């Protein structure tokens, strides 16, 4: 019993762990609600693309002395818009275009980084530095997460209809392009907020795994949102504490726990899990 208690209590005795935990939970929550839309809309790669594309923006912000978030956000959005433009104006499919745009921007970012003198560690940008989160970072994350969560809670039905049936969204008078770009802006904002904590490479996991896990567990979107949030927050707490005890990097630990949650759902989900589907097939087979 006391071991369980100390698993939670010991890390929380440190201020940096308290901040890490709070940051992780905020980021986990906001990524998880967006992940539900990304998974259903088939935009998983878009999350990956925007996060990689952020790198040159980050480096240019150092050079120009701007807040990190501004450059990152601009670069992320540029990637999304450029992808849309290239897709509309060529015969190449969206996923291909996206691959070219984001890897190009990522490469550009790496080249820029090697040419620029900074006190930043590339490792921290790529993989995050959860334990180094400052109170100021936390405020930034809090504001972005708060705005995104508010918008999604207010507009989740509109976003859902947009993903499910754009034609119907039009037919009931929803402004499609506002929703489309709105969703991209929220995505870019969320990625920017998450980068300090989990880094460019791993943020995509936070943007996919909770939604995918929840998708296996329910047939109703409103529940999917709640399950995804619960899974993400739980994983963030466990992952952060785990990283303290095994002295591992925090971001990867969280991602690992989320992947584990997905595997559990994949195996044991009551209706859409493999075992349940086996059981259903057996009597007829």
């Amino acid at each position: 019993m006391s071991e369980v208690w100390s698993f939670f209590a010991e890390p929380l005795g440190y201020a940096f762990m308290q901040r890490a935990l709070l940051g992780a939970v905020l980021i986990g929550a906001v990524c998880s609600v967006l992940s539900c839309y990304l998974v259903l809309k088939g935009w998983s790669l878009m999350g990956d693309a925007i996060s990689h594309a952020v790198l040159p923006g980050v480096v240019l912000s150092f050079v120009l002395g701007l807040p990190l978030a501004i450059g990152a956000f601009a670069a992320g959005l540029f990637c999304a818009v450029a992808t849309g433009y290239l897709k509309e104006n060529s015969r190449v499919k969206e996923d291909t275009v996206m691959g070219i745009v984001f890897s190009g921007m990522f490469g550009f970012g790496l080249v820029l980084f090697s040419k620029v003198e900074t006190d930043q560690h590339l490792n921290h940008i790529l993989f995050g530095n959860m334990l180094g989160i400052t109170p100021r970072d936390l405020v930034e994350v809090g504001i972005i997460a708060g705005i995104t969560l508010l918008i999604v809670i207010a507009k989740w039905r509109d976003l859902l209809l947009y993903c499910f049936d754009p034609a119907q969204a039009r037919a009931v008078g929803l402004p499609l392009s506002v929703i489309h770009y709105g969703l991209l802006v929220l995505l870019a904002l969320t990625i920017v907020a998450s980068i300090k904590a989990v880094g460019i490479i791993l943020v995509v996991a936070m943007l996919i795994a909770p939604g995918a896990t929840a998708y296996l567990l329910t047939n109703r979107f409103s529940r999917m949102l709640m399950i995804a949030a619960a899974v993400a927050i739980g994983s963030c707490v466990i992952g952060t504490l785990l990283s303290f005890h095994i002295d591992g990097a925090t971001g990867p630990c969280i991602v690992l726990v989320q992947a584990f949650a997905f595997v559990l759902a994949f195996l044991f989900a009551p209706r859409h899990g493999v075992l349940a589907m086996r059981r259903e097939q057996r009597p007829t087979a």
Partner: protein
Amino acid sequence: MSSAPVFLAGASGAEGVVASLSVRDVTVAYPSGVTALLDATFELGAGTICGLVGVNGSGKSTLFKAIMGFVTPSRGQVRICGLSVNQALKRCCVAYVPQSEEVDWNFPVLVEDVVMMGRYGHMNFLRIPTAKDKEKVTESLERVNMLRFRHHQIGELSGGQKKRVFLARALAQEAPVILLDEPFTGVDVKTETAIIELLRQLRASGHLMLVSTHNLGSVPDFCDQVVLLNRTVLASGPTATTFTPQNLERAFGGVLRSFRIEGGDLHDDHDARSVTVLTDDERPVVYYGEGGPEEEPLRRTDKGA
């Protein structure tokens, strides 16, 4: 504008609107260079079921996209209920029943959620359903006989049941103009009859329906107007005068299978009667004698292929 049969369903957006659809000189070209529609022109009024027929690739879905504002015509204009496309959509004047292939059936939404999506235009900013919205959903599901399935995930339904759910959504939307893209593919005769009966009721209450179909045989059954399409409007007007073997030959060309059996071929006596069977591999249309189509076309008995 209010002298014609005013749309009466009491839809908040479309209240007092008279159903009408005017397509004038509409030309649509895709970025790939294909001109899918060229100078398409026709007019439809309230209380109409209009069949939209043409071969694969003749531009039926493109016409729907132009009416829904998904593609912008490079020339010409579409007006719905006297309004521009965007105004009409804002006021919820158009409901759309999609082709089954366009829907992701694994989406985590229940039947009642889908039907509720028809109500969004009537709801407040947060889209929280009121008692009236819920009532409309129940009523719409009841009208298509799908109330029992309201808590099923949409992928758990049969093809015909899926069609009926989307029809219920169009009903819940209370739009004066309803577009149906091939509502009868993969649907058995019983469901087809039920859908047609529902369309007739809607016609009686002043709705305007545009229905694309390959079931030539059912067209004279329930459509009072027809538009024959092949990149452009070949003919449009009342079924009796437009849906003729001559026009169908023009619309379908070699694609259509045509059998004509004349009385003289069967026996030696003089006999002016003849039977013509036209089919594009769905249910055939059958003409007796020299006149227009009969009220009851012959039902398909074989696959025709």
